């Protein structure tokens, strides 16, 4: 049976050598190497649930009056897009499960990418010869943020509409070209001539998924061609030799187990924990808004930045050079992504280390990188937390305005402090290890001397 199948495939595709090689590809040993896989599996769940949703979603902002079974919105004027998602959430059987799973999968997808990025960054796995793989990964993260934002905005509920107009305002704030670009995208000023929804829809369900899927394939193939990096855990792991478990039989059940486990957790969340209850928010109109409007977590750092920037437009004479939302909504993410793209070459310049590396380092082994990384993470995380100050005010009764004032100082001070502490901790840890190793050596020597 197995022989027949293998023969059938080989005689038609001539891939037996490739398949055999793939089956014995080696996966080095560390749990953190699986974080990227989790992202991949969340992506698979996203595509699968997303395909379902496309069969029921309508990409039109034509105004309709709701007469469905959901009572609080009876007779309400809304867009066809919103009504279709309302139907998915109420009348389409299993629709709400699929929708909520899709949304949780998006949240988890980006969380997994971020964790994966942390692992890559803090172990120096982006170094030569994997610079291209890393750059593709960072690009995918950026595209994923956009893709998720588009999906969130498609629904046209009160929250997503407010999110979209903020995005539009950030686009509008781009110096010299903002208004032109937005006029081009929306066909005139927001909310445009009703052409933006089909555009957003095709971008969300076709354009971005294809680009992300292609980059993902290239990313994974390049990893396979270069082979995984590895930690030095035993003497057999060197810059020139990889030690690990082969794809088959060792790794396959593990990876599949992770795939099914990820999917299982996502569907459990989709069924048990409510996410984005759009039927409660109601439809969006430009002239209504609700308190406590927040973007999904992965854009929380941007709302934090938008709120922290002091109120000023950069105006020269009568010409507005830089409208305010540019700083928080565009400049801030550009700096963060610019840092991610440029760090490998900056590090090469700083350390003069241009060698190829297959062995990754523990964070403590490279205090400079760890300090810089911890500083950056602290910076972005602080801005992110600042984005939820209004909810903190509701929950803990700490005045919003004083929170903002404190954050405005902290975002400049704390990253430096955190970086200094991280640097020190790394050095201490390494020194501690050295002391321990010396002790062991001395003890061994003493034992030898005694015998």
């Amino acid at each position, binding site marked *: 049976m197995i022989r027949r199948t293998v023969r059938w495939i080989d005689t038609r595709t001539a891939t037996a050598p490739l398949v055999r090689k793939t089956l014995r590809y*080696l996966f080095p040993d560390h749990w953190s190497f699986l974080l990227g896989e989790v992202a991949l599996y969340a992506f698979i769940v996203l595509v699968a649930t997303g395909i379902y949703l496309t069969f029921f979603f309508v990409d039109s902002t034509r105004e309709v009056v709701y007469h469905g079974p959901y009572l609080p919105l009876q007779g309400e004027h809304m867009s066809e897009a919103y009504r279709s998602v309302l139907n998915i959430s109420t009348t389409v059987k299993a629709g709400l499960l699929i929708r909520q799973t899709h949304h949780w999968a998006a949240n988890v997808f980006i969380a997994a990418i971020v964790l994966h990025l942390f692992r890559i960054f803090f172990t120096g796995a982006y170094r030569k010869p994997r610079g291209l793989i890393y750059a593709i990964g960072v690009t995918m993260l950026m595209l994923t943020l956009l893709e998720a934002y588009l999906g969130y905005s498609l629904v046209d509920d009160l929250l997503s509409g*407010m999110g979209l107009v903020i995005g539009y305002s950030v686009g509008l704030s781009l110096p010299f070209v903002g208004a032109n*670009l937005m006029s081009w995208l929306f066909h005139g000023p927001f909310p445009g001539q009703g*052409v933006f929804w089909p555009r957003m829809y095709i971008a969300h369900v076709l354009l971005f998924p294809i680009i992300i899927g292609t980059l993902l394939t290239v990313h994974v193939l390049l990893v396979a061609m270069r082979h995984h990096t590895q930690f030095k855990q035993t003497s057999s792991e060197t810059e020139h030799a990889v030690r690990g478990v082969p794809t088959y039989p*060792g790794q396959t059940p593990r990876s599949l187990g992770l795939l099914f486990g990820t999917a299982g957790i996502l569907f459990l969340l989709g*069924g048990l924990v409510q996410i984005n209850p759009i039927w409660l928010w109601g439809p969006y109109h*430009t002239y209504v808004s609700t308190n406590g409007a927040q973007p999904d977590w992965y854009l929380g750092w941007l709302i934090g930045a938008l709120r922290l920037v002091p109120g000023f*437009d950069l105006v020269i004479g009568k010409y507005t050079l830089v409208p305010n939302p540019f700083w928080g909504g565009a400049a801030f993410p550009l700096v963060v992504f610019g840092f991610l793209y440029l760090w490998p070459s900056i590090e090469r310049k700083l350390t003069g280390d241009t060698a190829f590396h297959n062995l990754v380092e523990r964070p403590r082994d490279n205090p400079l990188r760890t300090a810089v990384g911890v500083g950056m993470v602290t910076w972005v995380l602080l801005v992110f937390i600042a984005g939820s100050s209004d909810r903190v005010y509701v929950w803990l009764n700490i005045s919003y305005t004083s929170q903002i004032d404190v954050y405005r100082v902290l975002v400049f001070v704390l990253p430096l402090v955190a970086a200094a502490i991280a640097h020190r901790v790394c050095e201490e840890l390494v020194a501690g290890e050295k002391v321990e190793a010396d002790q062991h050596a001395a003890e061994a020597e003493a034992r030898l001397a005694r015998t």
Partner: protein
Amino acid sequence: MRKYLAAALVLLLGRGRAAKPERVVPEQPANPGAEAAAVVLLFLAALFAIGFIVVYAVDSLPAHTQLLGVALGLSLLCIAAALIVVAKRLVVTEEIVEPYPPVEHPGEQELIVQTVEESGDGLSRRGLFKLGLGAAGGTLGLAALTPALSFGPLFQTKYFRGTPWRKGTRLVDERSRPYRASDIETNDFYTAFPERTTAAAREDLGAAIVLVRLPKSLLQLPPELEGYDADGIVAYSKICTHAGCAISMYRAPLFQPDEPRPALVCPCHYSTFDPTDGGNVLFGPAGRRLPMLPLSIDSKGYLRAKGNFDDEVGPTWWGTHVWRPSP
């Protein structure tokens, strides 16, 4: 070093072959307990999958979404658990060491260079040829992108300046009933639209305004906005100049001496505007004040616009202040 590793590898593989020459994967002793567990988990997964179908089919069940999610989620998790049992107990976990692929292949690289260079022997004026290629490729690329201009008016920004407000336009509420000045009370706030606009036109950022009445003692409009109020009633664009959200909060103190002063607040980034002095920014990220609409009261007591906004409506862009919209 590499040679040494290769030798070690041969030795390692060779040793395996010496023990059991025909095997690729080392032997794994049977583990009946684990096997039974994996089988049970797989059947459990099947059971939950059937459960999912049953829940789907039976409409009368409460908490439909929850049951569906639990059934599907547990089915998937059972499969995951079975696979993890297989991985940890039923298949061998081999430790193999093999060399990394070489960092580069200088010989191959050289051959590629040679192939490309030698293929160009027939070209005598390479520079010109490259120029031609570049010209054709570049312009064709531009031509391919040109239809994307049909998306929308890239160079016409005048639409950003237009609002539906004209001199004499009456203010109406959401149900198109015109506002009388006497309808507007202090401490309340009202959303108004220009009369005779369609539902779609009301979505224009220039359409919606917020109306409040202030005691004359509080009103301190700057000289250039003198006369914009109608008997203490002031009108501002409802769209925040920062990021375009609707300003849906009116901070209206009940007892002035010990409560915060009146303010219009946007719930997105909490930009706070002062309605008493022409909409200046009191707090938050907004970079400019709220545009103000001049009001008048006609002989029948209806509120009318006395002209267009004094400044551009909506989130700020590069041309916001360049030309003032004509009144």
